[in-house]
Protein backbone atom coordinates (compact mmCIF):
# COMPACT_ATOMS: atom_id res chain seq x y z
CA UNK A 1 0.00 0.00 0.00
CA UNK A 2 2.89 2.33 0.51
CA UNK A 3 6.50 2.11 -0.38
CA UNK A 4 7.98 2.28 3.10
CA UNK A 5 5.68 -0.37 4.53
CA UNK A 6 5.09 1.47 7.76
CA UNK A 7 2.58 4.21 7.04
CA UNK A 8 -1.05 4.49 7.94
CA UNK A 9 -3.93 3.26 5.83
CA UNK A 10 -7.46 4.55 5.77
CA UNK A 11 -9.86 2.05 4.31
CA UNK A 12 -8.39 1.61 0.86
CA UNK A 13 -7.39 5.18 0.37
CA UNK A 14 -4.02 6.76 0.65
CA UNK A 15 -4.17 10.34 1.78
CA UNK A 16 -1.24 12.37 0.60
CA UNK A 17 -0.17 15.47 2.48
CA UNK A 18 1.67 18.26 0.68
CA UNK A 19 2.36 15.87 -2.22
CA UNK A 20 4.17 13.58 0.14
CA UNK A 21 3.45 10.67 -2.16
CA UNK A 22 6.19 11.96 -4.40
CA UNK A 23 8.78 11.77 -1.64
CA UNK A 24 7.84 8.41 -0.16
CA UNK A 25 6.48 9.89 3.05
CA UNK A 26 2.86 9.02 2.44
CA UNK A 27 0.89 8.85 5.62
CA UNK A 28 -2.01 6.50 5.43
CA UNK A 29 -4.15 5.13 8.18
CA UNK A 30 -6.24 2.11 8.80
CA UNK A 31 -9.77 2.55 10.09
CA UNK A 32 -11.92 -0.41 9.26
CA UNK A 33 -9.72 -3.31 10.25
CA UNK A 34 -10.41 -3.55 13.97
CA UNK A 35 -8.46 -6.70 14.76
CA UNK A 36 -8.53 -5.93 18.44
CA UNK A 37 -11.02 -3.46 19.84
CA UNK A 38 -10.00 -1.04 22.56
CA UNK A 39 -12.26 -2.83 25.03
CA UNK A 40 -10.81 -6.23 24.18
CA UNK A 41 -7.28 -4.95 24.56
CA UNK A 42 -8.19 -3.50 27.94
CA UNK A 43 -9.69 -6.81 29.07
CA UNK A 44 -6.56 -8.68 27.94
CA UNK A 45 -4.37 -6.30 29.92
CA UNK A 46 -6.48 -6.80 33.02
CA UNK A 47 -6.19 -10.58 32.56
CA UNK A 48 -2.41 -10.26 32.26
CA UNK A 49 -2.31 -8.23 35.45
CA UNK A 50 -4.71 -10.32 37.52
CA UNK A 51 -3.87 -13.84 36.37
CA UNK A 52 -0.49 -13.48 34.65
CA UNK A 53 -2.43 -14.86 31.69
CA UNK A 54 0.10 -15.89 29.04
CA UNK A 55 -2.46 -16.47 26.30
CA UNK A 56 -3.79 -12.95 26.84
CA UNK A 57 -0.24 -11.62 26.65
CA UNK A 58 0.37 -13.52 23.40
CA UNK A 59 -2.79 -11.99 21.91
CA UNK A 60 -1.65 -8.49 22.92
CA UNK A 61 1.78 -9.21 21.47
CA UNK A 62 0.26 -10.36 18.19
CA UNK A 63 -1.62 -7.10 17.80
CA UNK A 64 0.73 -4.52 19.31
CA UNK A 65 4.28 -5.74 18.63
CA UNK A 66 4.09 -5.28 14.82
CA UNK A 67 2.42 -1.91 15.32
CA UNK A 68 5.03 -0.84 17.84
CA UNK A 69 7.75 -1.82 15.41
CA UNK A 70 6.11 0.16 12.63
CA UNK A 71 5.58 3.09 15.03
CA UNK A 72 9.26 3.15 16.02
CA UNK A 73 10.27 3.05 12.35
CA UNK A 74 8.28 6.26 11.89
CA UNK A 75 10.50 7.92 14.50
CA UNK A 76 13.40 7.10 12.19
CA UNK A 77 14.68 3.92 13.87
CA UNK A 78 16.29 1.07 11.96
CA UNK A 79 14.27 -2.13 11.60
CA UNK A 80 16.37 -3.96 14.18
CA UNK A 81 16.25 -1.11 16.72
CA UNK A 82 12.49 -0.82 16.19
CA UNK A 83 12.15 -4.58 16.73
CA UNK A 84 14.12 -4.26 20.00
CA UNK A 85 11.97 -1.42 21.29
CA UNK A 86 8.82 -3.33 20.39
CA UNK A 87 10.13 -6.32 22.40
CA UNK A 88 11.22 -4.12 25.30
CA UNK A 89 7.83 -2.40 25.36
CA UNK A 90 5.93 -5.68 25.41
CA UNK A 91 8.10 -6.94 28.27
CA UNK A 92 7.30 -3.74 30.18
CA UNK A 93 3.60 -4.27 29.39
CA UNK A 94 3.92 -7.67 31.06
CA UNK A 95 5.75 -6.23 34.08
CA UNK A 96 3.57 -3.19 34.55
CA UNK A 97 0.15 -4.55 33.61
CA UNK A 98 -1.08 -4.08 37.18
CA UNK A 99 -0.63 -0.31 36.76
CA UNK A 100 -3.02 -0.23 33.83
CA UNK A 101 -6.24 1.46 34.87
CA UNK A 102 -8.96 1.24 32.21
CA UNK A 103 -10.78 4.18 33.79
CA UNK A 104 -7.75 6.42 33.15
CA UNK A 105 -6.60 5.56 29.65
CA UNK A 106 -7.28 3.15 26.83
CA UNK A 107 -4.95 0.20 26.26
CA UNK A 108 -3.40 1.71 23.13
CA UNK A 109 -2.70 5.04 24.84
CA UNK A 110 -1.17 3.29 27.84
CA UNK A 111 1.01 1.06 25.66
CA UNK A 112 2.00 4.07 23.56
CA UNK A 113 3.32 5.92 26.64
CA UNK A 114 5.38 2.87 27.64
CA UNK A 115 6.82 2.63 24.12
CA UNK A 116 7.56 6.34 24.03
CA UNK A 117 9.49 6.11 27.29
CA UNK A 118 11.29 2.95 26.14
CA UNK A 119 12.44 4.83 23.04
CA UNK A 120 13.64 7.76 25.14
CA UNK A 121 15.56 5.37 27.39
CA UNK A 122 17.15 3.76 24.38
CA UNK A 123 18.27 7.14 23.05
CA UNK A 124 19.77 7.89 26.47
CA UNK A 125 21.70 4.64 26.54
CA UNK A 126 23.04 5.23 23.05
CA UNK A 127 24.42 8.57 24.17
CA UNK A 128 26.14 7.28 27.30
CA UNK A 129 28.95 5.01 28.40
CA UNK A 130 27.85 1.40 28.78
CA UNK A 131 28.68 1.32 32.49
CA UNK A 132 26.03 3.89 33.30
CA UNK A 133 23.57 2.50 30.80
CA UNK A 134 23.43 -0.92 32.45
CA UNK A 135 22.75 0.63 35.83
CA UNK A 136 19.58 2.25 34.56
CA UNK A 137 16.31 0.34 34.41
CA UNK A 138 13.48 2.03 32.51
CA UNK A 139 10.94 0.30 34.74
CA UNK A 140 12.20 2.43 37.64
CA UNK A 141 11.09 5.51 35.75
CA UNK A 142 7.91 7.26 36.73
CA UNK A 143 5.09 6.58 34.34
CA UNK A 144 5.70 9.19 31.67
CA UNK A 145 6.59 12.84 31.96
CA UNK A 146 3.06 13.96 32.81
CA UNK A 147 2.79 13.51 36.54
CA UNK A 148 0.13 15.41 38.48
CA UNK A 149 -2.36 14.05 36.01
CA UNK A 150 -3.87 11.56 38.40
CA UNK A 151 -6.83 13.68 39.36
CA UNK A 152 -7.89 14.32 35.82
CA UNK A 153 -10.78 12.15 34.72
CA UNK A 154 -9.49 10.52 31.60
CA UNK A 155 -11.90 7.68 30.94
CA UNK A 156 -13.57 9.50 28.05
CA UNK A 157 -10.44 11.23 26.82
CA UNK A 158 -9.43 8.64 24.23
CA UNK A 159 -12.93 8.70 22.78
CA UNK A 160 -13.02 12.49 22.68
CA UNK A 161 -9.63 12.69 20.99
CA UNK A 162 -10.62 10.09 18.38
CA UNK A 163 -13.81 12.03 17.76
CA UNK A 164 -11.84 15.27 17.39
CA UNK A 165 -9.40 13.75 14.89
CA UNK A 166 -12.29 12.56 12.76
CA UNK A 167 -13.60 16.13 12.64
CA UNK A 168 -10.30 17.57 11.49
CA UNK A 169 -9.81 18.23 7.80
CA UNK A 170 -7.95 15.26 6.30
CA UNK A 171 -4.97 17.41 5.46
CA UNK A 172 -4.67 18.68 9.03
CA UNK A 173 -5.09 15.24 10.61
CA UNK A 174 -2.40 13.92 8.28
CA UNK A 175 -0.11 16.82 9.13
CA UNK A 176 -0.41 16.02 12.85
CA UNK A 177 0.26 12.32 12.19
CA UNK A 178 3.45 13.33 10.41
CA UNK A 179 4.61 15.93 12.90
CA UNK A 180 4.07 13.56 15.80
CA UNK A 181 7.27 11.75 14.92
CA UNK A 182 9.57 14.68 15.36
CA UNK A 183 11.62 17.50 14.01
CA UNK A 184 13.74 15.36 11.79
CA UNK A 185 10.68 14.48 9.81
CA UNK A 186 9.73 18.16 9.62
CA UNK A 187 13.12 19.11 8.23
CA UNK A 188 12.90 16.21 5.82
CA UNK A 189 9.51 17.35 4.60
CA UNK A 190 10.73 20.91 4.21
CA UNK A 191 13.86 19.80 2.39
CA UNK A 192 12.13 17.36 0.10
CA UNK A 193 9.37 19.77 -0.83
CA UNK A 194 11.69 22.73 -1.11
CA UNK A 195 9.57 24.80 1.27
CA UNK A 196 10.99 26.62 4.30
CA UNK A 197 10.95 24.81 7.64
CA UNK A 198 8.97 27.79 8.94
CA UNK A 199 6.14 27.00 6.53
CA UNK A 200 6.02 23.42 7.75
CA UNK A 201 6.00 24.67 11.34
CA UNK A 202 3.19 27.15 10.70
CA UNK A 203 1.09 24.34 9.20
CA UNK A 204 1.66 22.35 12.36
CA UNK A 205 0.56 25.34 14.47
CA UNK A 206 -2.59 25.76 12.39
CA UNK A 207 -3.46 22.07 12.66
CA UNK A 208 -2.82 22.05 16.43
CA UNK A 209 -4.90 25.20 16.85
CA UNK A 210 -7.80 23.58 15.04
CA UNK A 211 -7.47 20.38 17.09
CA UNK A 212 -7.47 22.47 20.29
CA UNK A 213 -10.63 24.26 19.20
CA UNK A 214 -12.46 21.00 18.44
CA UNK A 215 -11.27 19.33 21.67
CA UNK A 216 -12.48 22.28 23.73
CA UNK A 217 -15.83 22.28 21.92
CA UNK A 218 -16.26 18.59 22.76
CA UNK A 219 -15.63 19.10 26.49
Amino acid at each position, binding site marked *: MNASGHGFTTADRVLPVFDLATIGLVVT*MRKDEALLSADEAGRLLVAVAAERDRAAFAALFGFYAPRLKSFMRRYGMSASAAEDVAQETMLLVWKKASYFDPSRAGASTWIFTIARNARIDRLRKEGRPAAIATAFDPSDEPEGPASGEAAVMTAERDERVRNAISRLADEQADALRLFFFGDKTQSEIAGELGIPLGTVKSRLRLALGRLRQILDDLK
Partner: protein
Amino acid sequence: MIKHHPSDETLFRHASGTLEPGPRIVVAVHAGGCPVCAGRIGEFEAFGGSLLQEIEPEEMETGALDRAMAMIEADSSGRRKTAPAPRLARADVGIRLPEALEGCGIGPWRWIGPGVRWSRVTLAGDVDANVMLLKVAAGRRLPEHTHVGSEYTHVLKGAFSDARGRYGPGDLDEADDDVQHQPIVDDDGECICIAAVEGQTKLRGLFGRLIQPLFG
Protein backbone atom coordinates in the same frame (compact mmCIF):
# COMPACT_ATOMS: atom_id res chain seq x y z
CA MET B 1 -2.81 31.48 39.29
CA ILE B 2 -0.84 30.22 36.29
CA LYS B 3 -0.89 32.62 33.35
CA HIS B 4 1.86 31.42 31.05
CA HIS B 5 1.85 27.88 29.65
CA PRO B 6 4.00 26.01 27.12
CA SER B 7 2.69 26.21 23.57
CA ASP B 8 0.52 23.38 22.25
CA GLU B 9 3.37 22.55 19.91
CA THR B 10 5.71 22.04 22.85
CA LEU B 11 3.13 19.94 24.71
CA PHE B 12 2.56 17.90 21.54
CA ARG B 13 6.30 17.24 21.26
CA HIS B 14 6.45 16.46 24.98
CA ALA B 15 3.68 13.87 24.60
CA SER B 16 5.23 12.31 21.50
CA GLY B 17 8.62 12.04 23.21
CA THR B 18 10.42 14.23 20.68
CA LEU B 19 11.21 17.18 22.94
CA GLU B 20 14.85 17.31 23.99
CA PRO B 21 15.69 16.04 27.50
CA GLY B 22 16.38 19.50 28.99
CA PRO B 23 13.16 21.18 27.86
CA ARG B 24 11.32 17.93 28.64
CA ILE B 25 12.15 18.11 32.35
CA VAL B 26 11.21 21.80 32.54
CA VAL B 27 7.85 21.08 30.87
CA ALA B 28 7.39 18.10 33.23
CA VAL B 29 7.96 20.42 36.21
CA HIS B 30 5.34 22.79 34.84
CA ALA B 31 2.79 20.04 34.04
CA GLY B 32 3.29 18.59 37.54
CA GLY B 33 1.72 21.76 38.93
CA CYS B 34 -0.58 22.67 36.06
CA PRO B 35 -3.69 20.52 35.54
CA VAL B 36 -4.45 22.36 32.27
CA CYS B 37 -1.18 21.29 30.67
CA ALA B 38 -1.29 17.82 32.24
CA GLY B 39 -4.71 17.42 30.60
CA ARG B 40 -3.45 18.60 27.23
CA ILE B 41 -0.48 16.25 27.37
CA GLY B 42 -2.97 13.49 28.17
CA GLU B 43 -4.96 14.42 25.07
CA PHE B 44 -1.88 14.31 22.89
CA GLU B 45 -0.93 10.97 24.43
CA ALA B 46 -4.37 9.72 23.45
CA PHE B 47 -3.59 10.98 19.96
CA GLY B 48 -0.45 8.83 20.09
CA GLY B 49 -2.55 5.89 21.26
CA SER B 50 -4.90 6.24 18.32
CA LEU B 51 -1.93 6.44 15.95
CA LEU B 52 -0.55 3.23 17.41
CA GLN B 53 -3.92 1.54 17.07
CA GLU B 54 -4.31 2.54 13.42
CA ILE B 55 -0.79 2.27 12.10
CA GLU B 56 -0.04 -0.21 9.36
CA PRO B 57 1.77 -3.06 11.19
CA GLU B 58 5.27 -4.17 10.23
CA GLU B 59 5.97 -7.85 10.65
CA MET B 60 8.18 -8.86 13.55
CA GLU B 61 11.11 -11.20 12.96
CA THR B 62 10.55 -14.96 13.01
CA GLY B 63 10.38 -16.28 16.55
CA ALA B 64 9.69 -12.86 18.10
CA LEU B 65 6.77 -14.13 20.17
CA ASP B 66 8.80 -17.11 21.42
CA ARG B 67 11.56 -14.77 22.52
CA ALA B 68 9.02 -12.57 24.29
CA MET B 69 7.48 -15.55 26.08
CA ALA B 70 10.96 -16.71 27.16
CA MET B 71 11.66 -13.21 28.49
CA ILE B 72 8.50 -13.08 30.57
CA GLU B 73 9.23 -16.54 31.99
CA ALA B 74 12.71 -15.35 32.95
CA ASP B 75 11.16 -12.22 34.44
CA SER B 76 8.59 -14.21 36.41
CA SER B 77 11.25 -16.46 37.89
CA GLY B 78 13.29 -13.41 38.86
CA ARG B 79 16.24 -14.26 36.65
CA ARG B 80 16.29 -10.94 34.80
CA LYS B 81 17.79 -8.53 37.30
CA THR B 82 18.83 -4.94 36.85
CA ALA B 83 20.98 -2.87 39.13
CA PRO B 84 19.33 0.13 40.83
CA ALA B 85 19.78 3.56 39.25
CA PRO B 86 22.76 5.48 40.61
CA ARG B 87 21.93 8.13 43.19
CA LEU B 88 22.94 11.65 42.27
CA ALA B 89 24.06 14.20 44.83
CA ARG B 90 21.47 16.81 45.80
CA ALA B 91 22.55 20.08 47.36
CA ASP B 92 20.09 22.01 49.53
CA VAL B 93 19.06 24.99 47.43
CA GLY B 94 16.75 26.46 50.05
CA ILE B 95 13.39 25.65 48.47
CA ARG B 96 11.24 22.55 48.13
CA LEU B 97 11.86 21.20 44.67
CA PRO B 98 9.00 19.83 42.57
CA GLU B 99 8.37 16.09 42.33
CA ALA B 100 9.38 15.98 38.67
CA LEU B 101 12.97 16.66 39.74
CA GLU B 102 13.13 13.57 41.94
CA GLY B 103 16.14 11.54 40.95
CA CYS B 104 17.91 14.52 39.42
CA GLY B 105 21.24 15.68 40.72
CA ILE B 106 21.21 19.22 42.15
CA GLY B 107 24.45 21.14 42.37
CA PRO B 108 25.31 23.79 44.98
CA TRP B 109 24.61 27.48 44.25
CA ARG B 110 27.46 29.14 42.43
CA TRP B 111 28.01 32.83 41.92
CA ILE B 112 28.05 33.95 38.28
CA GLY B 113 27.55 37.68 38.58
CA PRO B 114 26.24 40.37 40.91
CA GLY B 115 22.97 39.05 42.37
CA VAL B 116 22.91 35.98 40.14
CA ARG B 117 23.59 32.39 41.18
CA TRP B 118 23.04 29.12 39.38
CA SER B 119 22.94 25.43 40.23
CA ARG B 120 23.49 22.64 37.76
CA VAL B 121 20.62 20.14 37.41
CA THR B 122 21.79 16.71 36.26
CA LEU B 123 19.21 14.38 34.73
CA ALA B 124 19.57 10.74 35.74
CA GLY B 125 19.61 9.51 32.17
CA ASP B 126 20.90 12.54 30.32
CA VAL B 127 23.99 13.85 32.01
CA ASP B 128 24.71 16.17 29.11
CA ALA B 129 21.37 18.00 29.12
CA ASN B 130 21.68 21.71 29.84
CA VAL B 131 19.32 22.30 32.74
CA MET B 132 19.89 24.69 35.62
CA LEU B 133 18.35 26.43 38.55
CA LEU B 134 18.84 30.17 38.48
CA LYS B 135 18.53 32.49 41.48
CA VAL B 136 18.35 36.20 40.84
CA ALA B 137 18.18 38.87 43.55
CA ALA B 138 15.24 41.26 43.97
CA GLY B 139 15.13 44.12 41.49
CA ARG B 140 18.02 42.75 39.52
CA ARG B 141 17.94 43.31 35.78
CA LEU B 142 19.36 40.64 33.56
CA PRO B 143 21.43 41.49 30.52
CA GLU B 144 19.49 41.86 27.29
CA HIS B 145 19.92 38.79 25.17
CA THR B 146 18.72 36.77 22.24
CA HIS B 147 19.06 33.05 21.71
CA VAL B 148 19.23 30.66 18.83
CA GLY B 149 17.18 27.75 20.16
CA SER B 150 14.00 28.09 22.23
CA GLU B 151 14.50 28.80 25.92
CA TYR B 152 12.19 27.31 28.57
CA THR B 153 12.07 28.98 31.97
CA HIS B 154 9.70 27.85 34.72
CA VAL B 155 9.32 30.05 37.80
CA LEU B 156 9.60 28.20 41.13
CA LYS B 157 9.66 31.22 43.43
CA GLY B 158 9.28 35.00 43.04
CA ALA B 159 8.60 36.70 39.72
CA PHE B 160 10.21 38.47 36.79
CA SER B 161 8.86 40.67 34.03
CA ASP B 162 9.86 41.67 30.56
CA ALA B 163 8.16 43.37 27.62
CA ARG B 164 5.94 40.32 27.09
CA GLY B 165 4.49 40.15 30.60
CA ARG B 166 5.01 39.12 34.21
CA TYR B 167 5.99 35.59 35.13
CA GLY B 168 5.18 34.31 38.62
CA PRO B 169 5.36 30.95 40.42
CA GLY B 170 4.07 28.14 38.20
CA ASP B 171 4.43 30.14 34.99
CA LEU B 172 6.49 28.78 32.13
CA ASP B 173 8.14 31.24 29.78
CA GLU B 174 8.73 29.71 26.38
CA ALA B 175 10.91 32.17 24.48
CA ASP B 176 11.38 31.50 20.77
CA ASP B 177 14.67 32.12 19.10
CA ASP B 178 13.42 35.47 17.80
CA VAL B 179 12.52 36.85 21.23
CA GLN B 180 14.82 39.51 22.51
CA HIS B 181 14.21 40.20 26.16
CA GLN B 182 15.64 41.77 29.23
CA PRO B 183 13.87 40.27 32.24
CA ILE B 184 13.81 42.17 35.54
CA VAL B 185 13.05 40.51 38.87
CA ASP B 186 10.32 41.94 41.14
CA ASP B 187 11.49 44.34 43.85
CA ASP B 188 10.04 42.42 46.78
CA GLY B 189 12.07 39.24 46.62
CA GLU B 190 14.48 36.97 44.81
CA CYS B 191 13.38 34.80 41.92
CA ILE B 192 14.28 31.13 41.46
CA CYS B 193 13.68 29.44 38.10
CA ILE B 194 14.47 26.20 36.39
CA ALA B 195 15.62 26.75 32.84
CA ALA B 196 16.72 24.78 29.80
CA VAL B 197 17.69 25.75 26.30
CA GLU B 198 17.26 23.68 23.19
CA GLY B 199 20.42 22.33 21.70
CA GLN B 200 22.46 19.60 23.37
CA THR B 201 25.95 20.53 22.48
CA LYS B 202 26.27 24.22 23.08
CA LEU B 203 24.72 26.51 25.63
CA ARG B 204 23.23 29.58 24.13
CA GLY B 205 21.36 32.69 25.07
CA LEU B 206 21.39 34.38 28.42
CA PHE B 207 22.17 31.33 30.49
CA GLY B 208 24.56 30.09 27.89
CA ARG B 209 26.48 33.31 27.82
CA LEU B 210 26.58 33.48 31.58
CA ILE B 211 27.48 29.90 32.12
CA GLN B 212 29.45 28.86 29.08
CA PRO B 213 32.80 29.72 30.70
CA LEU B 214 31.94 27.43 33.60
CA PHE B 215 31.22 24.48 31.35
CA GLY B 216 34.29 25.42 29.31
